[in-house]
C-alpha cells in the first residue's frame, strides 16, 4: 500500500470519527442549556449572584465553543469527502494505488491513472461515477461551507445579504408574467436597499410573493370594473389578461430575459445594501440595473411589441 493510499484510509477513518463526535456535542449543548437555566434562576439570589454570573459566562463560552467546533467538524468532513472523491477518481482509494506516486493523483477527474495493472476501463468508469456521485451528494454541504467561509472572511451580514439576494433572485424569477410587476420590482428593490441585509431581502421576497397575489388581482379587477381596456397600453394588457386567463407559454429567451429583469435590480440593490453602500445608491443602481434588464427583455420580445405577450 502506498503512502497516499494509507493516508486515504486514515482520512476515511477520521471522517467516520467526526460523525461520531456530533452526538456528544449535541448532548453537551443540551446539558449546558439546562445548566444555564439553573444559573439564570440562581442569579436572582443575592448570595449566589456573582458566582452564578461567572458560571453563566463560562457556560455561554462553552456553548459557543461547541457550536464552532461542530461547524469546523462539518467543514472538515466536507473537505475530506471532496478530497476522497478526487483521489477516488485517480484510482487511489479503489485499491489500485500500488504504483501511485505521492501526489500523482492531483489531476482529478478524467485523469485516472490506474496502478499495478489493475485499472480496466470499467474500473475507471466506476471510479468516475463514484466521484461524480460523491461530488453531487456533497454539493449542499459545499454551498453551506462556502457561505460560512464567506461569512468568516467578510462578516455575517454581508454573507446573509448575498445569500438572501440569491434566494430573492430565484424566487422573483418565477413571477415574470406581466408588466405590473414593475411596481413589485421597484418596491422589492427599495425594501432590499433600505432595510438591513437579511430583513431587507426577506421583505423583497415577501413583496414579490404578495405582488403575485395582490397587485395583479387588484389591477385586473379594476380593469374589468372600468372596462378601461383602451385607455392605455398598460390597462389594455391587463384587460387582455382578464379576458384570457394565463395559459402562458414563453420561449426560453423570454423566460431568461424576464428572470434577468426581475433578478438584476433586486440582486444589485441587495449587494450594495449588504456592502454598506447606502440605501440611495442601492436604489438608484437597482433601478438602473432594472432598466438594463428591461432592455434585455424587450430585445427578447423583438417583433412582439413592447409589452409582454402570451401565446394563447
Amino acid at each position: 500500500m502506498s503512502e497516499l493510499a494509507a493516508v486515504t484510509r486514515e482520512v476515511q477513518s477520521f471522517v467516520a470519527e467526526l460523525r461520531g463526535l456530533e452526538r456528544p456535542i449535541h448532548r453537551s449543548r443540551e446539558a449546558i442549556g439546562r445548566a444555564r437555566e439553573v444559573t439564570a434562576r440562581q442569579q436572582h439570589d443575592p448570595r449566589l449572584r456573582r458566582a452564578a454570573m461567572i458560571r453563566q459566562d463560562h457556560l455561554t463560552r462553552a456553548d459557543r465553543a461547541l457550536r464552532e467546533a461542530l461547524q469546523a467538524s462539518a467543514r472538515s468532513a466536507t473537505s475530506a469527502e471532496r478530497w476522497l472523491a478526487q483521489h477516488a477518481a485517480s484510482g487511489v482509494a479503489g485499491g489500485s494505488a500500488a504504483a501511485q506516486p505521492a501526489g500523482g493523483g492531483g489531476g482529478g477527474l478524467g485523469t485516472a491513472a490506474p496502478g499495478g495493472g489493475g485499472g480496466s476501463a470499467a474500473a475507471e468508469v466506476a471510479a468516475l461515477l463514484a466521484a461524480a456521485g460523491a461530488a453531487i451528494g456533497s454539493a449542499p454541504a459545499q454551498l453551506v461551507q462556502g457561505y460560512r467561509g464567506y461569512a468568516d472572511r467578510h462578516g455575517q451580514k454581508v454573507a446573509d445579504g448575498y445569500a438572501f439576494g440569491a434566494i430573492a433572485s430565484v424566487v422573483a424569477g418565477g413571477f415574470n408574467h406581466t408588466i405590473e410587476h414593475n411596481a413589485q420590482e421597484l418596491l422589492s428593490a427599495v425594501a432590499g436597499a433600505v432595510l438591513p441585509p437579511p430583513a431587507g431581502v426577506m421583505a423583497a421576497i415577501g413583496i414579490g410573493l404578495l405582488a403575485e397575489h395582490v397587485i395583479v388581482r387588484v389591477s385586473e379587477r379594476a380593469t374589468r370594473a372600468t372596462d378601461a381596456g383602451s385607455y392605455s397600453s398598460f390597462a389594455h394588457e391587463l384587460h387582455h389578461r382578464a379576458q384570457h386567463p394565463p395559459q402562458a407559454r414563453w420561449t426560453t429567451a423570454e423566460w431568461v430575459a424576464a428572470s434577468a429583469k426581475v433578478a438584476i435590480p433586486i440582486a444589485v440593490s441587495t449587494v450594495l445594501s449588504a456592502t454598506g453602500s447606502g440605501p440611495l445608491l442601492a436604489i438608484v443602481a437597482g433601478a438602473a440595473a432594472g432598466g438594463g434588464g428591461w432592455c434585455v427583455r424587450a430585445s427578447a420580445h423583438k417583433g412582439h411589441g413592447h409589452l409582454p405577450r402570451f401565446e394563447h
Partner: protein
Amino acid sequence: MAGLPSTDPAAQRVLDGCALALRRTSRGADALASRVGVVLGGSATGTDRELAAELRRLAASTYQAAAALELARSR
C-alpha cells in the same frame, strides 16, 4: 462569594465524555493534517491544501472547545 450547588452528576459525565472526545479529535486532526502535508509534499493540489487547512482549524477549534467545557464543568 457563596458557592453554587454542584452540577448534576449525569450532566458532568456528559461534559467529561465530550471534552475527552474533543481532545482526541483535536490530536487526530492535527496529526492527519501533518500526514497529508508530508505525504503530498510539493505536489499538493488545492484540495489537498484545503483539507490540511480545515484539519488544522478543526484541531484548534476542538482544543478550545474542550478547554471551555472543562472550565464550565469545574464548579
